[in-house]
C-alpha cells in the first residue's frame, strides 16, 4: 500500500505499479509521531507526517512539494530511514554535503523516530513545479512521475502495467452537486486540505439552510484531475501530466491565475451565492490569497482561519451561521445577485 496526500499524485500511477493507493487525510491535529508540536508548524502537515510514521502497513508514502512545511517535514522519515540503513531509502544513492561531513551525521529527529517499533516507510518527495506556463514545467512533472515509477519498482512490485480501466479518470469518484431551484443556498468552500474533523463545516452549512455545491478544498473537487480524453496522448505519463499537472488549480501555482479561472467558471456554472474561504493557521500560501479573494469575489465571502483544534469551535460555528443568514437575507433582497458574473 502506498499512501499519498496531494491531489497531484495520480493514484492510477500507483496502482499501475501493483500497489494499492491510499489517500490519507488525518482525522485530527493530535496525531503523535516524530514531529513535536512547535510554534509555526502547520497542524495538517504535522498530523499527516506523524500519521504515516506510525502506520506500519505502508510500503511507501508520496509527498508533493507543493508547500514548504510538508516538503520539509516529509524529509524526516526519508532521511531517518536512510540513516537506519533501510534498503527502502527513498533518495537512492547517498550524497550531498552529508557525505563530506567531517563527523558522522546523525539522522534528523533521531530520538523520536528510533522510539518507534517499526521501520518508517520510504518517502518519495515529488517535486510539483510551481510554475506551469512553460512546457519545461510539464516535462519536469512527467520526469517526476517516471522517477516515482522507478522508486515503486525498487519497492518491489515490478514494472508499470497499464492501469485498470476502472481507475482511469475515476480517481475521485464523487460528482459535483448541482443546486435545485428553490432549495438550499448554493455555497462554495475554497481552501487547502482539511483534516477530517474540519469537514464538519459542510454539515454546519447544511444545518443553516445551505448546500456546498462547490468543494474547492484540497480534499474536494478542486483536486480532481481533468477527465480522460480517450483520443488523447497514447503515452500514459504524458496523459497523467496533462490531466493532473495541466488541470488542477491551486494557490501555490505561479502565477495563481488557474485558481481564479477555475473558481469563476465553476461558481458561475453552479450559481454560487456565497464563498467560505479557509486556511490552516501558518499556511502562508492560502492565507495570502484571502485578501485578494475578498477583493475579487463579487458576493459575500467569509474568511475562516482553521486553528488546528478539534474540528470547528463554537465561535467558528457562530460565524458560519451568521454568514449563512447574511447570504440568505442578501439573496432574498437580490443584493448579492451578480449582474456581471464573477470578474
Amino acid at each position, binding site marked *: 500500500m502506498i499512501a499519498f496526500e496531494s491531489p497531484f499524485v495520480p493514484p492510477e500511477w500507483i496502482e499501475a505499479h501493483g500497489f494499492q493507493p491510499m489517500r490519507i487525510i488525518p482525522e485530527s491535529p493530535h496525531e503523535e509521531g516524530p514531529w513535536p508540536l512547535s510554534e509555526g*508548524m502547520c497542524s495538517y502537515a504535522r498530523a499527516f507526517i506523524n500519521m504515516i510514521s506510525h502506520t506500519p502497513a505502508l510500503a511507501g508514502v508520496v509527498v508533493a512539494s507543493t508547500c514548504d512545511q510538508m516538503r520539509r517535514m516529509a524529509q524526516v522519515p526519508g532521511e531517518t530511514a536512510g540513516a537506519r540503513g533501510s534498503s527502502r531509502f527513498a533518495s537512492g544513492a547517498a550524497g550531498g554535503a552529508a557525505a563530506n561531513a567531517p563527523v558522522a551525521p546523525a539522522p534528523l529527529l533521531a530520538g523520536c523516530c528510533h522510539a518507534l517499533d517499526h521501520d518508517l516507510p520510504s518517502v518519495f518527495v515529488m517535486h510539483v513545479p510551481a510554475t506551469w506556463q512553460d512546457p519545461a514545467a510539464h516535462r519536469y512533472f512527467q520526469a517526476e512521475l517516471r522517477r516515482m515509477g522507478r522508486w515503486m519498482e525498487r519497492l518491489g512490485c515490478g514494472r508499470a502495467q497499464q492501469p485498470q480501466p476502472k481507475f482511469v479518470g475515476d480517481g475521485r469518484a464523487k460528482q459535483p452537486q448541482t443546486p435545485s431551484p428553490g432549495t438550499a443556498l448554493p455555497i462554495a468552500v475554497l481552501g487547502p486540505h482539511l483534516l477530517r474533523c474540519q469537514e464538519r463545516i459542510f454539515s454546519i452549512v447544511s444545518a443553516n439552510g445551505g448546500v456546498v455545491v462547490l468543494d474547492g478544498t484540497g480534499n474536494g473537487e478542486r483536486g480532481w484531475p481533468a477527465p480522460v480524453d480517450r483520443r488523447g496522448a497514447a503515452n500514459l505519463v504524458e496523459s497523467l501530466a496533462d490531466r493532473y499537472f495541466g488541470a488542477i488549480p491551486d494557490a501555490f501555482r505561479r502565477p495563481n491565475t488557474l485558481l481564479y479561472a477555475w473558481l469563476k467558471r465553476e461558481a458561475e456554472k453552479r450559481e454560487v451565492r456565497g464563498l467560505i474561504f479557509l486556511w490552516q493557521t501558518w499556511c502562508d500560501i492560502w492565507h495570502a490569497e484571502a485578501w485578494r479573494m475578498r477583493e475579487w469575489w463579487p458576493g459575500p465571502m467569509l474568511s475562516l482561519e482553521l486553528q488546528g483544534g478539534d474540528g470547528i469551535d463554537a465561535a467558528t460555528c457562530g460565524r458560519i451561521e451568521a454568514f449563512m443568514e447574511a447570504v440568505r437575507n442578501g439573496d432574498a433582497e437580490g443584493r448579492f445577485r451578480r449582474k456581471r458574473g464573477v470578474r
Partner: protein
Amino acid sequence: MSRMHRGLPRGGDGPRKITLQEWGERRERLVLEGLREPWYGGPLQRHVEEGDLRLTSLMFDDSASALRLWNFLLSEEDRLREHKAAGRVLVGAMKDLGTVPVMAWSVPDLAAFYLDGAWWIPCVMELSAPLMDVASSMGLDDSFCPVRAVLGACVTGEHFPLPDMVTCSVGATCDDLSAVAQRLEGIGHPVTWWEVPHRRRPERGEESVVLPGGFVAPQEQVDFVRGELERVRAALQTRSRCKLDDAALSSGIKAANRMRAVLEELRSLAYSAVPCPLPSLEMQVAEMLALHFCSDVEESIAVLTDLADEVKARVKAGVGPLSRDAVPVFWVNPVADMRVMNLIEDCGGRVAGTEYLFSHALDPIPEDVQPMEALARTALADPMVGSAADRAARILADVVKFGARAVIISRIPGASHCATEGLAIKEYVRASLDIPVMEIEVPPLSDAFGASLRTRIDAVLEAARQARAPR
C-alpha cells in the same frame, strides 16, 4: 586606504567598538588626519537624519574600512536612483539570492537589486516607516515573515525606486516569499517566475554533479534549472534590448568570483582568528554585499578588499575589538534585528561561522563550464532548496572548520521554513557534536525581548564554556 587609517595601534589602544556618536568624533579626527572618502562617504549620523534610527542603538567597529562599509550599504538607494536616471533597466530580483544579479550586472544596461532586502527596513528604521502596517492592511499580517515589508515598500514606493521588471525563483523556496511575490504581481508588478526544484539526491547510477559548496545534485536537475535561467536571460534581454551573451556572462561571473574570493578570505580570518578581528555586525553586512553587490560591482569589491586588509593587519598585530576568550558561536539564519549581532558579543561571545541562508552566494561560481551551466549549479546549491539534513551537514562542517563551540539558530518570525528546519538542524548538530545548540527568535525590533534574549544567549555561552572542545 593608507595604513595610517587602519585600526592599528593608536597610542596603545587597539581596535574597539564605538557608538554612533563616537563615530562622529572619530571620523572628524580621521578626516583631519587625511582620510579621503569615496563620494558616498560622510558622517554616519546623516543616515539617522534620513530615518535609519536603529543606528543609534548599535555599536560599530571603529576602523575607517568599517565606516566605508556602512556608508556604502546605507547609500544604496542613491545608487539605484542614479542607475534609473541613467536609463538602466532596474531588475528587482527575488529569492534566488546570488544568481540573477550576477547575470544582470554582466551588462551595463541592467542594474539589479534584491527586493527581499526590504526586510531590513523595519529594523533599520525602527518601524517608523509603516511598511508592516501596509502589508498587514493587504492581508499579509505578522503570521508572515518580515519579508512582507517588500509589499509595503513597493506600495509606498519610498525606499527604493520601483523596479522595471521583477524576477522570482519559486518551487522549493519559502512560501512567504512566494506569497509576497504573487501579491506584487497582483498590484501591477509583472513577475518573471522561474523554477528551482527541490534538490534531491541522485539515484544510483544517475549522472550527477557536485555543486559549489559540496552538495550533489542530479545533472537532470541542473539541466532543468539552466533552461529556467535561459528564460530569465531572454526576459532580461527583451526588457533591456541588450545582448546578454555568454562572453558577457563569463565576465560577470569572474567579477562575482573576485568578490567571493575576497569575502572568503575575510570570513576565514574574521571567524577563526583570536582575538576576533572584526565584529559580527560588520561581517553580516559584508556577507550581504555578496548578494547583489550593493548596486556597484567594482566598488563593492573595493569596500570588501579594504575591510579584508584591515582584518589582515589586525590579525598580524594580534589585536581585535573583542576579548581573547570570547566564546566562538556559529550563527544560523540572518537576524531581522541587527542589534542582536551586538548582543552576542555583549554576552561574551563572538561569531565563528555563519549560514545566513545564502551560502551559495558566497561559494565561487564554476568558471570551467559554460556560464549558464555554472549559474544553474549555483542556483541549485541554495541551502533552502535541499533537505534540512543537507543544510545541517554543511553547518556541521563549518562548525568544525571554524572551531565554534556553540550553535545559535535564529528563527525568523513567521517564516514557513523555520517551524521545522531549526528543530531538525538542532537535533542533527546535537547528535553529532557535543556542543550546545539553541534556537532563539528575533523579531525586526527585539528591544522588548532584550532581557530574555540575553538570558538565553548567556545560558548557551555558559554551557559552551563548560563543554569540551568539539571532537
